[in-house]
């Protein structure tokens, strides 16, 4: 392909374009006059034709177009030269105006920023809990959330298996405004190594899984849980002796009924294969002022009793009913 990108092609194409445009003009000029037959007195014959005859008797009558019509054709040729001069298009020539789709797009972005910038700037100067009390900010935040976050966390922000619920008080990395903002900016990379080797054989894994279930008082086999308790030492490094997790490294609390991968089978799978979760970093993808609003919206979901879209009653009952295999 590199052969096509060198300067020779650009010049060759430019010449083809210019010659074609000039040829159009020549064609127009040469074809706008025609020989017609008229009487010896100079007056037209009864039927004025262009002299073209097809199939023996099919004649083309001469119904001339108005002159301004032909001038319009010349006009288009002049226009094309002016256009190519101003906007480029002759080979790699960029044009006097230097216009491009990218520059157009960037200008539109800039225009949008000047239009909406002050609004976002106003919220940037307020701290997140204050922003979270502003109905307009929440409305913008909700729209940003639906556009960007809802694909994983759900339109109601309550998450699904593997994706945390953002409306409850249980947080993997902490739910204070600053931590939420950090999560949005830097992203999070949750990693649990496969632990089967450290725990023991398949029976040990089953026992530990039952013990994990017992921590939150979920349905479990008490005898197996008892057997699994000593083996849990392998997990305690991250999840803590009491299984209450460690927010500093995003190790989930296993002692509540809020699960990212809940249910006995999923827990066994987690121990055997480990888990790898990723929350993407949005710094640079979404502007800081918008992330600020998003953080305020997310924080408001679990902290703002007046938040219109999520009533506290609905939140509480939902988090309770959703206690088992769903979310966090």
């Amino acid at each position, binding site marked *: 392909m590199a052969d096509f990108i060198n300067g020779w092609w650009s010049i060759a194409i430019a010449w083809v374009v210019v010659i074609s445009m000039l040829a159009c003009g020549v064609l127009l000029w040469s*074809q*706008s*006059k*025609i*020989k*017609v*037959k*008229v*009487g*010896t007195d*100079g007056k037209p*014959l009864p039927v004025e034709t*262009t002299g073209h005859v097809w199939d023996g008797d099919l004649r083309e009558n*001469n119904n*001339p*177009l*108005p*002159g*301004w*019509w*032909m001038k319009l054709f010349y006009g288009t040729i002049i226009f094309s030269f002016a256009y190519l001069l101003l906007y480029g298009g002759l080979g790699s020539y960029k044009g006097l105006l230097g216009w491009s789709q990218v520059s157009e797009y960037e200008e539109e972005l800039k225009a949008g920023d000047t239009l909406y910038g002050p609004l976002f700037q106003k919220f940037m100067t307020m701290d997140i809990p204050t922003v979270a009390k502003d109905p307009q900010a929440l409305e913008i935040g909700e*729209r940003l959330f*639906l556009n960007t976050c*809802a*694909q*994983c966390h*759900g*339109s*109601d922000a*309550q998450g*699904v*298996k593997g*994706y945390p619920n953002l409306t409850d008080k249980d947080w993997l990395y902490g739910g204070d405004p600053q931590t939420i903002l950090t999560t949005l900016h830097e992203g999070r990379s949750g990693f649990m190594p496969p632990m089967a080797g450290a725990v023991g054989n398949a029976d040990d894994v089953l026992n530990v899984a039952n013990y994990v279930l017992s921590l939150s008082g*979920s*349905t479990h086999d008490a005898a197996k849980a008892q057997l699994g308790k000593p083996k849990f030492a392998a997990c305690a490094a991250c999840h803590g002796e009491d299984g209450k997790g460690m927010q500093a490294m995003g190790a989930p609390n296993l002692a509540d*009924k809020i699960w990212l991968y809940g249910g006995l089978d999923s827990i066994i799978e987690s121990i055997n294969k480990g888990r790898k979760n990723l929350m993407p970093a949005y710094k640079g993808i979404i502007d800081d002022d918008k992330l600020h609003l998003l953080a305020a919206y997310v924080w408001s979901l679990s902290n703002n009793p007046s938040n*219109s*879209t*999520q*009533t506290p009653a*609905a939140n509480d*009952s*939902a988090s309770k*009913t*959703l*206690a*088992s*295999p*769903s*979310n966090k």
Partner: protein
Amino acid sequence: MKNEPGKKVEYQEIEQSLFETQKKIYPRTISGYYANVRWFMVWFTQILFFGTAWLTWNDRQAVLFDLAARKFYIFGLVFWPQDFIYLAVALIISALLLFLVTAVAGRVFCGYACPQSVYTEIFMWIERKIEGDRPARIKLDQLSCPSPRRIALKAAKHSAWIAFSLWTGFTFVGYFTPIHTLTQEVVNFSLGPWQLFWILFYGLATYGNAGWMREQVCKYMCPYARFQSAMFDKDTLTVTYDASQGEKRGSRAKKADYKSLGLGTCIDCSICVQVCPTGIDIRNGLQYECIGCALCIDACNQVMDKMEYPRGLIRYTTEHALTEKLDRHGIVQRMMRPRILIYTGILTLIILVTALSVTLRSPLKFDVIRDRGLPRVTEDGSIYNVYRLQIMNTDEQPRNYVIEVSGIPGATIISDSEFEMPAATTKVIPARVMVPADAAKKGSNKIIFVVRDRDNAAVSVAEKAAFLIPR
């Protein structure tokens, strides 16, 4: 010079341009019945166009096409992009109306209501007031050197034309941005670049089309003239020269007995050609250039009156009326032909259905989209699906809506199911639906969302969606 032996017709070949230079037409003023109808239509259409923009309705402009907000206000009605079908219907109605009117009475639209004719008429009036009638205008243009008087008159005419054009452009843009705001912007010189562009563009189009192009638009640009023959039949009323009365044409003394001279009533005064805005001779029969303005009828009747001959040498009549000598009653009777009845029938039907549909239009539109994530299953086995409800209140009043679900026994909405929609807004409402364990089969189940107005039982819309239960 080329002569072929044995042929009687002698001819020569000359080189000729394939393109015609535009011949300037200087229509003569005429008064009479059809000229009055024309002027009535000029006033009617222009009061409608220039006036409607200033009307107010419900504290907003009565007719406003708000492109930026994609809301189109026509008096009490608000149309959204979702109502696009009504634009299509409006175009269908216009087309059928054109077919019907053309089949009955020829190109009366061209003659009396087409903006091209109406603005040309207005521009010719201005021209006449400044430069004088036909002979004066011809004389003015024949002056070889530009005299100060000629320059002054031309400058005055073009200034008046441009002023009128700009006002037209301003009014046109006033249908797309509120005209009161636009007025202030014009007064303060703070017009946006696009408003300025469209005012100038539309103004320039008016000036060019009505001042310079005139009949050229009808002859070369407008497709209607070209398919008139497909819409005409032998019972269509057209402006017709009655050759059986008029021929043989020729000049004569007013007192002379033309019949004994072997002449018809046409005195070949060419007034009918002079008044024609497209510059044709109606005595050559029906031509595609004829816009059906009937000014030649007025002109000819005046001449006939002066000559004390019967009126109607040129008149609105049909081909059959001439060949079969039908009287007025006969022509009206022929109007009731299948073509006309079918057009009228279809037109009435479409108008009725559209009117009904517009009146019964629901102010509520909504759409359901299921979240793409997996369903949630709780410890007790109940299943949750999350949906996004895109809800539109197209009304100019705020409304209170309630969401309900049905289709699966025990399905309930576990999120806010009542909400207020401000006037003319769109909102996305997340809705979480819970279905108890074993209430439905595994896989996809049909679920029905109903959004209804809490205060008005008539407003209620149902939408289908899928409820997923994991296998």
